[in-house]
């Protein structure tokens, strides 16, 4: 399925709708608004790419997650903590756990549980909404964690509560139950076949779309890949849209199927849509 770039949001610069030093994490809400964290701010862009609002985070944000529902909550993963905001930018609470939380490079929510990807401890921590620690995911291996030499741990939880995690050092995407049992994985190393993952450590970032489709990003060369529920490659694209030195490019998918990808060098978000997608 071919994709084409339809929009570019942000960029490097000092104006309010741009980023000066870093753009690290994104998410898209049901209405197609883009939430982007970088520098020490969270910026919200409308579906047209125009900046709507922004606010300061306590520490530089590394990841962001927007919940759906009537009262959306925005979680921003930071070093040693996760801040929780309402859509107006008011900080509701901050979950701190000095003993357990390292650098939170991914956040997701499922039911009554909050899940935080911690690159410093190479695992996913699961908490309940009151902030009580429940369990770790990904530690039951000889390596005692995910193999992430690229320095970024990403994951997403699907509608059934299954956690999909890129394990870039192993060149695959693994599936875990909420209590941390490995269910299976897709992917393999290949330096030549686009269906495989190349280099030392790919894929680095992941988003879910529709009924079990996986959208991942790779580095060196930077590109986007779409896999179906069976783990079959459906599309690979985007290399020419990104700076070749980009890495750990966060990805999100809108309800309409548009794919948002961070260019971590140019500090912008590239938006792609399937060629046959409506408008």
């Amino acid at each position, binding site marked *: 399925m071919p994709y084409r770039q339809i929009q570019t949001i942000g960029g490097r610069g000092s104006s309010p709708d741009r980023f000066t030093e870093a753009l690290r994490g994104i998410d898209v809400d049901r209405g197609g608004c883009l939430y982007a964290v970088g520098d020490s701010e969270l910026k919200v862009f409308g579906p047209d790419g125009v900046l709507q609002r922004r606010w300061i985070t306590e520490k530089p944000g590394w990841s962001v997650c927007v919940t759906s529902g009537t009262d959306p909550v925005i979680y921003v993963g930071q070093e040693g903590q996760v801040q929780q905001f309402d859509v107006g930018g008011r900080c509701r609470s901050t979950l701190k756990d000095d003993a357990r939380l390292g650098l939170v490079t991914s956040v997701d929510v499922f039911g009554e549980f909050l899940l935080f990807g911690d690159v410093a401890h190479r695992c996913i921590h699961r908490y309940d909404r009151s902030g009580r620690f429940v369990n770790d995911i990904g530690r039951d291996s000889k390596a005692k964690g995910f193999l992430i030499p690229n320095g970024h741990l990403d994951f997403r939880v699907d509608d059934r509560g299954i956690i999909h995690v890129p394990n870039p050092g192993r060149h695959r995407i693994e599936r875990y139950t909420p209590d941390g049992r490995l269910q299976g994985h897709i992917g393999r190393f290949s330096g030549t076949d686009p269906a495989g993952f190349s280099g*030392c450590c790919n894929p680095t970032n992941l988003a879910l779309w529709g009924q079990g489709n996986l959208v991942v990003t790779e580095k060196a060369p930077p590109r986007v890949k779409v896999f179906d529920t069976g783990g079959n490659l459906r599309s690979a694209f985007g290399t020419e849209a990104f700076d070749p030195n*980009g890495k750990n490019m966060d990805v999100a998918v809108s309800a309409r199927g548009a794919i948002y990808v961070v260019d971590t060098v140019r500090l912008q978000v590239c938006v792609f849509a399937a060629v046959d997608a409506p408008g």
Partner: protein
Amino acid sequence: MSKEPTRRDVLGHAARGAGLVTLGGAAAYLAAKRGRADAWQIDWSKCVNSRLGATGVPACDKCATTCVLPLSAVRAVNEYAKCGRCYICPAYFDVTSPVDKDGLPSKKLCPRDAITRRPIGEIDPHDPANNYYEYLIDEARCNGCGKCVMACKEPAGLGSIRLEVRHDLCLDCNRCPIAVACPDDAYIRVPTGTAPFAREHA
């Protein structure tokens, strides 16, 4: 009564004397070199093999091919604190080669087979990807061709490998042919004792 020295004694003393002179000369030479105010060094932020931003270009092998020594005084060094100990190291494997039955690239990258790969701890027999590996560079084999440096550079790798001038090997030529040939002016003279160059974006 003293014994007349034989021809063998004289030759032996002469040989020992010559050896001492040679050793002394070498020591003096090395001492002089150490005492020099400056020495050749590679600026990693300029060298195309390690300079961030220079991607999709072939590795530069001028250090290997233009040094006056039979085996260049420039060697690759792996900084273990930065090394990811990857299952598939792009500096060790030719990652563009076909995969073998174990799912690994079938060829090595180094043309002189100067890098060895050793598992850390016991191998997981059920899942080879579930292991860390140590990568050691045999400096006696390395000629500083830079292929591994380019392959390990970010974003493909972690940038733990770099080229360094081995000052115990370098003849300290005034007009170093590597410096003349270097297309990036990365081979420069620096005051001895200078801290290694900081890695910076180009």
